[in-house]
Structure formats: C-alpha cells, structure tokens
C-alpha cells in the first residue's frame, strides 16, 4: 500500500504545492489522479518513488517511510514513467534502453533478452528494437519509456500522462494493457486529464485542485459531476454531457462511456415505441 499522511510539499521558491494530502492506495488498485495543469499531480506521484520527500507529513510504501529508503531501492517496487519520454531515454537503441534497468538490477543475460523481447512485442515496438529512440515519433518514444519501466516488473506502476501523443488505437491497446496489469493484481496509478480515456477504463478517480484532494470516488460518479470537474479545469466526457442534456427524458445520469450510453438510449427508444 502507498500511503500519504498530511503530506505537504514546497519547492525551494514559492508556497506549498501540496497542502496536506491524506491518501491510501491499496494493493491491486487502479487509480487515476486528475486535476488542472499545476494542481500538483506530478509532484504528488514523485513522492511515491521517493524522488520528492515531503516537507511536512509522511509517505510510506508498504509501511516503510520513503525518507528511510534510497530512490534506487524504492524504484524496484515503484516504477514511474515520466510524462516527457525525453527525460528518461538516452540509449543508442530501443532494445538497449529497455535492457538498461534490467542490467542495473543485476538480471542475467538470458532473462534480460527474454523480458526485453516480450515487452517490446506487447507494446508493438519490436520493429524498432534496433532503432535509435530519437528517430521515433513522440507517441512511440512514450511507449519505449513505458516498456523500459515495465521490463523490471515493479509492483506499483505509476504513469504520468500516458495517453499524450497516442492515437486512438494505441490508447485502446494501452487501455487493454493497463487493465491486464490490473488483472495481474498490479497497482496502477496514472496521472491524466484525458477524461475520455478515464471514462473508458473506469478506475477510482482522485481529483486534485491547487494542491488539495477535492474528490475521491468511482469514475462514473466523479466524471458526471459538472461543477466539480469545472473547478479542476476538466470537462465532462461528451457522452456524460449528452446524457445530461436528455435528463428530462429520464435517462440515467451516471453514464460516461459509449457502450453503456448505447444500451441506455436503445432502451429509451424501445420504451417510446
């Protein structure tokens, strides 16, 4: 479990970016952290692997205070994939990039080869194994960064804006992949403001605004709350707005994804006939 208690954090200049975050993320949970630009989302997740240490309060990973462990040791359990892949990629080839951390963690050559090949395949990157990451498109580099973290099989996978620059098919694939991780009982935490993506994966949603948690609950409840979303500079999924515009016809108001909406609307049409 990742737990934060009265977590405050301030950068050397400026006020508190995080203002007393109390949060528990249990094992095998699937969580989306959402909120406006500058809400403190990235600052918060950097506490999960110890890159940031609280100015006040406490963060524990599996009951151990992150102040008592090195980032390198926490990283083995908590894999963080940065928003900008260029902050993380540096090797000559995609394959090298993915193998790098495995080598650092001391795996044998055979395991490194097996895991690298398998993760590249899963993320549709095999054809680029020998390419330089820097010749790839932004969306592809993003997947390389993800592959390099997933390769060492951390217990907690933390993704900062995983859908940026990804097209719809890749998002679809990413969603299936994340849901697969969740079904393997991994804890997946993603920072995102992609409401449509969240509407389709339906995780627990934690809404952050100006350094504080303003809501915490299931996606279908939080993503149908216009006032709340507006406060965090988010927009309702299109489907949810549609259902709300037809509210007076007795349509269910916590529908956020296309397929559920389709069923509801067909039901309503049938009732009329």
């Amino acid at each position: 479990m990742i737990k934060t208690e009265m977590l405050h954090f301030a950068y050397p200049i400026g006020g508190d970016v995080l203002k007393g975050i109390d949060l528990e993320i249990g094992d095998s949970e699937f969580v989306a952290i959402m909120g406006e630009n500058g809400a403190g989302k990235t600052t918060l997740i950097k506490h999960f692997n110890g890159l940031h240490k609280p100015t006040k309060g406490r963060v524990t990973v599996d009951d151990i205070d992150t102040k008592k462990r090195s980032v390198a040791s926490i990283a083995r359990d908590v894999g963080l994939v940065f928003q900008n892949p260029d902050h993380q990629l540096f090797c000559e080839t995609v394959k090298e990039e993915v193998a790098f951390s495995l080598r650092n963690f001391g795996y044998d050559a055979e395991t490194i080869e097996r895991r690298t090949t398998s993760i590249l395949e899963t993320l549709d990157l095999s054809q680029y194994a020998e390419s330089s990451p820097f010749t790839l498109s932004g969306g592809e580099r993003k997947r390389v960064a993800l592959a390099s973290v997933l390769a060492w099989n951390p217990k907690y996978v933390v993704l900062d804006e995983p859908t940026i620059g990804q097209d719809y098919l890749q998002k679809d694939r990413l969603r299936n992949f994340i849901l697969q991780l969740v079904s393997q009982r991994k804890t997946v935490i993603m920072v995102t403001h992609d409401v449509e993506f969240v509407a389709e994966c339906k995780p627990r949603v934690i809404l952050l605004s100006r350094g504080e948690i303003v809501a915490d609950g299931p996606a279908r409840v939080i993503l149908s709350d216009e006032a709340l979303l507006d406060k965090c500079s988010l927009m309702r999924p299109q489907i949810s707005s549609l259902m709300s515009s037809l509210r007076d016809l007795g349509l269910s108001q916590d529908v956020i994804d296309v397929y559920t909406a389709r069923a509801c609307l067909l039901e309503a049409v049938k009732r009329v006939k």
Partner: protein
Amino acid sequence: MSVIDARDLTFTYLGSSKPSISDLTFSVNRGQFVVLTGPSGCGKTSVCRCLNGLIPHFYSGELQGDVIVCGSSVRDKPTSELARKVGFVFQNPENQLFSLSVERDVAFGPENLGLPRNETRERVEWALEVTGISSLRDRAPYELSGGQQQRAAISAVLAMKPEVMVLDEPTSFLDPKSAAEILKVVHGLNRKFGMTIVLVEHRLDLASQYADRVIIMDKGKIILDGKPSEVYNERARMIGVGIPRITFLAQLLQKDGLTFSSMPLTVDEASATLRRSISP
C-alpha cells in the same frame, strides 16, 4: 485561391530507409481551417515541417516534389523568410519561449524583422490582446501555466503577422479546459482575420466543430480528405483516428436502426436528434 500547394511531396529523413511522407498532393485555400490528423507516426508532423521550410533547410534528408506556400517554393526560400508567411506553433510551448518576459518573447519576431519601434509595439499589443494575455506581459514564461504559455507562444507567432498558421498538436500538454480555450483562440484567428489554419490535432472531440476540412493521413499518405462529418467513418476509426465519442455513438446507434440526417460532431447536434427519437 490556394495558399498551400503540395505536389508529389515525398521526404525521407537522413538515415531512414523509407519515406515519412510519400507522393502527397493537396492544396489549401486561403482562409480554410484544416485539421490534419492520423495515427502516430503517419507523417503529419513532417507535413508541417515542409510548410515552413524546416524540411528541407533544418532537417536533412531527401525531398522530392515541392510545396508552394504563399507563392514561394519552400525549396528556394530559407526558413527565416518563410517565417514571415507561415507561423509555426509547437506541441510544447517550452520549446518556443525563451525570454524573461512574455512581452519580450512576443516582441522578438517583429524586432528581428527590423520593424520600427512603434510598429513592433503595436503588433505586440495586438498579439497579446488577441490571445487574451495582455495582463501577463511582464510575467516570465516559465511562471505561467501550460495554457498561458501556449497563448504566449501563439502571440509570439502572431506578432509576425503570418498568412498561414501551422499548429502541431498545440493542446496535447494542456488540461481539457485550457485545450478548449486554445482552440477557441485559433478559431478566432480564422474567423476574425481570415487566417489560414493547419492544425494537427488528436483531440477531435474539441477541434472538429471548427474545421472546414479534415485530412486524415496514414503511413505517409493522405487517405481521407473532406468535411469532418464525412471522413469520420469506419475506415478512419480502424486506422486509429480518435473520432469524437459522440460521433462514434451515433454511428453505433445508426447500425441499431436510429436515423441521423448527418453524423453529429457535437453534443448539441446529437442531443437534438436523439430527443426526437426518444420523446413520447
């Protein structure tokens, strides 16, 4: 009248074995709002780079065919001259802003054109006002939110008074509300000043309502080109175009037997049609 004319455009980056864009022929009329989209790696960014001469003057490789932008071939004109005609806004505003104040950043372009002081000043005022950041003029770009930074980047480009504005995924780092606001600003440039817009965008749910035309690329080629409601079809979806959820829902419902006179792009359009089908 066309402001962009691409003829058999093919480009292969140095060190790459296959072309990133191949045999593209298309033109864009003055005042059009064009959304360019397609799966990641389809070549849309390369197309943008051709429009202001970054290809072939900055990125090395083999260019075949040509693009005529505002009457000049990008092969002949250096990027510095094309920049007067074609403004370019990048995905990440941090890559584009460098001064210690927003005002200085916006003034940089006109100053480099050697414009007289008062004209520079007028252009800066105008560019800040159009994007709604006059009050942020003295702030350092790095202190601003992503949305404000992107407005500053757009202002800096606007101050050059380009005829064509090319924006390469300008909203991808922004939260949904800031993204919607940036697209409104871009729409304003098109509507108020008749500026030609080429917008590369994945967020079609937000951008489609402003587009006169959507060009969809796949594997370096244009595969669909038309009004948004016409091109958001099964084929587009299968190659990975994120057609607006509302349009997708309407397509599913149409298969189920409901009728839509045209495919809706916005919630309001869909809502009106559905209300008629559901109301007692």
